[in-house]
């Protein structure tokens, strides 16, 4: 075996390991995140409002301390039923109503098993965007879903069978977070 052959073996091995590692990393980190979230009591097919972010309780990198996060894990491996999601609208804040500022913020974002943010829906104070249906992969067109009066009901297809749904609401103070705690009780994430 000559040196050229060994060099080729080395290059092929290194390139395969390089791109293999890069391919695997997002899925591995998402799997670890699923496990960590489940360890904190976050369940599949239900929203859990996580405590206000502090240095002591941060479990993901770079959390925003100004946002209240509600998390729902989805998993279509055993149950192919669509998920009906309701994110309770976050009313305009008092200061906003008085001054016309636009600081209020709420959204529902969807992440697949490889970290892609495959959809984000803006939830407006008037209820627009608060009702969403998440379909299993490759199921588009199988269901006929009505649009409820007064609300925009969006239908989204998941690219992977597992993933994370996240509601973000601006709650930069303890008092605003307390309001989110009340309001988040009516969030829904289920079949």
């Amino acid at each position, binding site marked *: *075996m000559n040196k050229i052959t*060994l060099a080729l*073996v*080395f*290059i*092929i*091995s*290194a*390139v*395969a*390991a*390089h*791109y*293999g*590692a*890069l*391919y695997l*990393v*997002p899925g591995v*980190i*998402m799997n670890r*995140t699923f496990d960590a979230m489940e360890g904190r009591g976050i369940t599949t097919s239900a929203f859990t409002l996580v405590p206000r*972010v*502090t*240095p*002591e309780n*941060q479990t*993901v*990198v*770079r*959390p*925003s*301390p*100004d946002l209240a996060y509600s998390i729902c894990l989805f998993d279509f491996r055993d149950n192919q039923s669509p998920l009906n999601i309701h994110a309770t609208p976050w009313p305009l*804040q008092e*200061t906003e109503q008085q*001054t016309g*500022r*636009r*600081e*209020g*913020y709420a*959204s529902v*974002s969807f*992440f697949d098993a*490889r*970290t*892609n*943010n*495959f959809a*984000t829906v*803006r939830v407006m104070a008037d209820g627009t965007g608060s009702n969403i249906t998440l379909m299993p992969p490759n199921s588009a067109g199988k269901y006929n879903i009505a649009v409820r009066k007064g609300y925009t009901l969006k239908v989204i297809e998941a690219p992977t069978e597992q993933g*994370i749904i*996240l509601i973000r609401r*601006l709650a*930069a103070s303890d008092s605003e977070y307390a309001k989110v705690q009340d309001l988040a009780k009516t969030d829904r994430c289920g079949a």
Partner: protein
Amino acid sequence: MKRIIAIISTITIGLMVGGVSALYMAGLVGGKSPAAFADVTKDDWSSDWSIGSKAADPYVRARVARHGLLALAKEEAVYFTRAVDSEGAQLRGDCTYELAGTGQDAYWWSITLYDGKSRLPMNSDNALSIDATLVAANYEADTSYNGNWSAIVSNTRPKRDKGDHGDALWISSKGAESFDLMIRLYRPSDAVLARPTETLNPPTIKRLSCGTTRAGDGA
């Protein structure tokens, strides 16, 4: 036998070199900066427009998984990171900085400090970030307020003389040896997305002092 050992050894070394180089280049080992893969830069604030999207290349995807998991795609939020002051020096927890800026062309914005491990620094100062809401409330009584604001980044709570806008806006760096600042722009305008280097007006970061005596600190 020697031939087989040579091949196995070569493959093993190749796998190790390939694996470690991937983890290093993706910022998972070796302390590579979270902003190392930026494709948009303005005044040392860096971002990458492919974050959160399928357009992200394998390096960006791996870096985001490590340093910014669950980040939103740019249409909903953009994230800019800066780790150096106006003189190009690494931001340090034992220095005091003045952060100065104005409004942002977005629905809402915030600035948060993260330590070298992309974590909130371990302190109980309750001053992890500032945001558009806090800035507006701080300047609420100032009828001449034109959107310009300033804040202190330091490891002790600053005080200001009478005449200033209440308590100084403050981000605590206590517990962070070195750090970076991240500005989030939620629902950025179309102009920001289309022409970021022309339309962004990110805050300036001026180092005031380092060491035990700090400008802007209280007694």
